[in-house]
């Protein structure tokens, strides 16, 4: 096992002599089992579908080799790289521009990632791979896309505090490049809307 994630356990494995990654969403005993199985099954299907789908958009993501819906298990290509989260501050700031571009591409094609964090991007041979589509959905609603951006901002602010501003600026530059100024403005408006819904945001509540 290489990582015990929040959702599933990740094991190193082989698929016809290629190094592969096995992700299995084991039952969570603390959850009601009807709820638990429906979540695990839904996310396994979603993740395997989406990862394959984004490849056709020219976005780097692992190849899916095998899916077992009953066991909630996916075997996929092993990406030998470093999680963006663990890179040096300078590198993260740089890469945020590419992450912004990738996010823009996803949104333009009606896909919301749902868990846009620095731990879901891998740097491998100067390419950025996107992973973990368990919370994704097909949606062209701009409010859903704004939720993605807000989450990324929240994570930068709490987990990468010293570089927050530069990284966020870079992300937005990349995002704007790929979605265009008009859509960018719509999304940014919605992001502040969502932030204003957060509790005790006095000043923001005044804005429309």
């Amino acid at each position, binding site marked *: 096992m290489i990582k015990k994630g929040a959702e599933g356990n990740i094991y190193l494995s082989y698929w016809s002599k290629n190094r592969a990654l096995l992700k299995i969403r084991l039952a969570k005993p603390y*959850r009601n089992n009807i709820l638990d199985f429906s979540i695990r099954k839904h996310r396994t299907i979603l993740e395997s579908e989406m990862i394959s789908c984004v490849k056709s958009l020219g976005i780097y993501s692992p190849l899916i080799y095998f899916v077992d819906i009953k066991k909630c298990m996916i075997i996929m290509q092993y990406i030998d790289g470093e999680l963006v989260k663990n890179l040096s501050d300078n590198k993260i700031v740089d890469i945020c521009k590419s992450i912004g571009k990738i996010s823009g591409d996803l949104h333009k094609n009606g896909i919301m990632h749902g868990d846009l964090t620095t731990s879901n991007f891998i740097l491998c041979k100067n390419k950025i791979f996107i992973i973990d589509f368990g919370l994704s959905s097909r949606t062209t609603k701009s409010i859903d896309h704004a939720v993605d951006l807000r989450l990324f901002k929240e994570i930068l602010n709490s987990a990468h505090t010293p570089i927050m501003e530069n990284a966020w600026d870079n992300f937005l530059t990349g995002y704007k490049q790929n979605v265009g100024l008009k859509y960018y403005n719509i999304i940014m408006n919605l992001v502040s809307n969502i932030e204003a819904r957060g509790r005790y945001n006095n000043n923001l509540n005044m804005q429309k």
Partner: protein
Amino acid sequence: MICLGIESTAHTFSCAILKKHDGKTTIISDVKKTYQPPSGEGIHPREASRHHIQHGPSILSQCMKLAKINIEDLNVISYAAGPGLGPCLRVGAVMARSLSSYYNIPIYPVNHAIGHIDLGKFLTGAKNPLVLLISGGHTMILSFVMNQWRVFGETLDITLGQLIDQFGRYLGFSSPCGKNIEKLSRNGTNYISLPYAVKGHDVSFSGLLSAAKHHSSKPEDICYSLQETAFSMIGEVVERALAFTEKKELLVVGGVAANTRLSQILNDVCVRQECSLFISPIKFAGDCGSQIALTGLLEATTPHHTPSKMENTFIRQSWRIDSVRIDY
């Protein structure tokens, strides 16, 4: 150093005395009284503030009596300046200001949410925890970075406490309804599918509340399913935050920490993520004067920190925890 803390952000009015001597802090007394709205109704800010005005003075004198000290012995007074209900906050602030100006005692306005965390850390001994703050006013996952509590995830609409209270009131209970809902849910057996809304590290409960209200099943089953769904959502986002931050401690503070089913789920989450779980003792998990006194004491004993001038003793209904700089 002896500090009086006054809490009056919502339904609870409480005074507490804390003493710091030779680097050791002890809670000497903590007295509280909680406003109980009529069945099926929530906290009416005006009624709650009247309750506080009526009972405030006797709570203060009881608290002083228990601690066996006089007001002249106090070195610091702190009060909850927000976030909370305006009329209620004002009662505590007026009491603190009057005492401070009449007896010439330094005064400190304190953020209520920070008080929750400071007291939780103090009572449980957690060192560098990921914090889950769950109450009627907050549902947040926080970690402390660069002199500030940073939000790792939070509710995008109503809080966990509100979800439970609003559904409880809909069934005819009076706030706070946590105990009643928990009791009912023990008799529920059928899990009903309800909206499960986890968005990254954030949660949203408003859809769940509407769905629960409009469901026609037995109340026991709805309570059971409501708790299971909401608590699983919290469990999942906490697990995500633990996996992301790789923190080895989880501290749970706030009124909803008293729920046994939730602590069972969080315990499981911590076992899975190999992390120690710290839960505030029930007596101090909900709103109390000690949390305000402790934060006041921490601020007063920080070098270069000066008490507020009387004209700066504000109250702020909306005061986000992540906007406060902390130097201790």
